């Protein structure tokens, strides 16, 4: 069985949650595996990350360099090509860095590539059987991956639970001298932090959240009316922002805000994992969608199959009626 490596994403001296998840995924591929972490970075931050990885990995390969102070996928790819043994299986998280790094890495390693894996069913001969989703989670697929010349696999964040085992006190191996000077055709300039927007959806206990099912910009008012009646705020999924119907600051999900409401009313939202990943704190989720097969119904507490554009105004009226009859 090929040696398994996990590329570790980190920030400000702290390893990403995916670090422990990739160690768990590696053991799904090969229960006997002792996966090796690979981490690039610079200075005290890098050493701090390596120290935390020692509890999950038997060996940690570190590559230090000032050019790694901000992660650059092209430089990391060139580094990995130099240090990885032929035929390796490389795991990386399926987030913005892994998406930047992994496809090109598979070309340079001449190995197979599978992205956004959320299940690993094991190895038969040279074929690794994996589970992916297509069509925004509406269907799943088994994929066979020929690992005879290695593989690069990106793993969906949160799909694999970290193993609860005793810390293994791994050793840190410095691979910096194997790498040498590197240059890249893309150079980092700066990070622009998201604007806060007019409404802070992270501060609300109740969110009326709308998706593609709201159909057009004028219908956003139907959600706002309900939110006003409930004392809630309107949030949304990505397609609503893409269509410029609401500001980016209203978007819930991996590329938007992480929210922790008590009640989350998902209106016309299909329930792609990038959206669900932005909902934390185990809220009471209500899904209203005209498609009975929408993935959102798998994660919601209560579901209603109905036409949103008719349902929302009636819901709003009922809430208003309650307020007008109940003593304040």
């Amino acid at each position: 069985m090929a040696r398994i490596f996990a590329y570790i994403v980190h920030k400000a001296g702290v390893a990403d949650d995916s670090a422990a998840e990739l160690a768990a995924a590696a053991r799904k591929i090969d229960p006997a595996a002792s996966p090796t972490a690979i981490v690039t970075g610079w200075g005290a931050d890098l050493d701090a990350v390596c120290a935390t990885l020692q509890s999950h990995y038997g060996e940690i390969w570190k590559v230090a360099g000032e050019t790694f102070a901000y992660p650059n996928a092209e430089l990391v790819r060139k580094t990995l090509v130099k240090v990885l043994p032929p035929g390796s299986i490389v795991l990386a998280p399926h987030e913005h860095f892994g998406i930047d790094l992994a496809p090109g890495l598979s070309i340079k390693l001449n190995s197979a590539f599978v992205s956004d894996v959320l299940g690993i069913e094991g190895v038969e001969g040279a074929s690794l059987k994996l589970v992916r989703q297509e069509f925004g989670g509406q269907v799943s697929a088994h994929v066979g991956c020929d690992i005879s010349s290695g593989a690069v696999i990106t793993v969906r964040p949160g799909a694999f639970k970290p193993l609860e085992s005793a810390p293994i006190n791994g050793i840190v191996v410095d691979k910096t001298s194997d790498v040498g000077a590197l240059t890249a055709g893309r150079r980092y300039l700066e990070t622009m932090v998201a604007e806060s927007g007019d409404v802070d959806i992270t501060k609300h206990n109740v969110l009326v959240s709308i998706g593609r099912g709201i159909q057009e910009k004028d219908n956003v008012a139907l959600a706002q009316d309900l939110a006003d009646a409930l004392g809630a705020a309107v949030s949304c999924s990505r397609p609503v922002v893409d269509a410029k119907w609401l500001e980016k600051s209203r978007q819930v999900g991996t590329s938007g805000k992480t929210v922790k409401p008590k009640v989350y009313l998902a209106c016309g939202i299909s329930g792609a994992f990038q959206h669900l990943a932005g909902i934390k704190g185990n809220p009471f989720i209500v899904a209203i969608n005209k498609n009975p097969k929408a993935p959102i119904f798998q994660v919601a507490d209560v579901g209603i199959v109905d036409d949103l554009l008719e349902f929302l105004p009636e819901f709003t009226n009922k809430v208003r009626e309650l307020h007008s009859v109940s003593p304040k």
Partner: protein
Amino acid sequence: MEILVCARRVPDTSENEIELNSAGNDLERDDLVYSINEWDNYAVEEALQIVARVGGNVTVVTVGGEDDEEILRREMAMGANHGVLISDDAFTGSDGRGIATILAAFVRKGQYDLILTGVQAEDGGAQVGGMLAALLDYPFASLVNSVEVLDGRKLKVSREIAGGNKEISEIDLPCVLSIQTGINEPRYVGMRGIRQVASIPIPTFGASDLGVDPGAVGQAAAKVKRVDYFVPALGKGAEMLHGSREENIDKLIELVAAKGGLK
């Protein structure tokens, strides 16, 4: 600026419910409505806007069959100067690497300053752009949500990273960018526009035209193969309310109030 956009025709999820066939191993493909992959449409719009600012041409290419010509014509109706179909029986069953290999061969036949793909298609692969860049040894940026042309054969690009933040970089041309949805507002295409480009011939290239070794692409060379489709066994799932709309609303208000959701 000569810009190539790699596009693909996919089942339109806003028009179809994606379901399994009666055998339960593939999608029910009868009656599926197809359209251009949403990400690719944003990429074409971005190419058109760049050319409007700095001049040049936009070529849209797809790997597929005769049916896929319709998306090329749609994008030509948007304003793309050329459409190209890459088609060969030897390409059937290619994995992401195979498609990237075919596209790389096409790129080497031309002179492109900038190559755009969508971030991903309906299978969520997010792979062809990065692979194409690596095959060509061009710089690459994924998840791009703004593009500015700088002097000296460089672009300033923004990538969508976590939390709505943007990572700004400069990147040397020629390069490959994978374009994220929301980067622009793709222009509307009417039936009239599509009729106007209906008779323009679309050149077609096969393996021998591009110098692609048929053994390096297609089903036989694919290291990654889809085995089947399935719908995973549901967990607990939602408690579905099956009453009339009025009953459902009453029940919902009761439940939401119990969770502290009424002011």
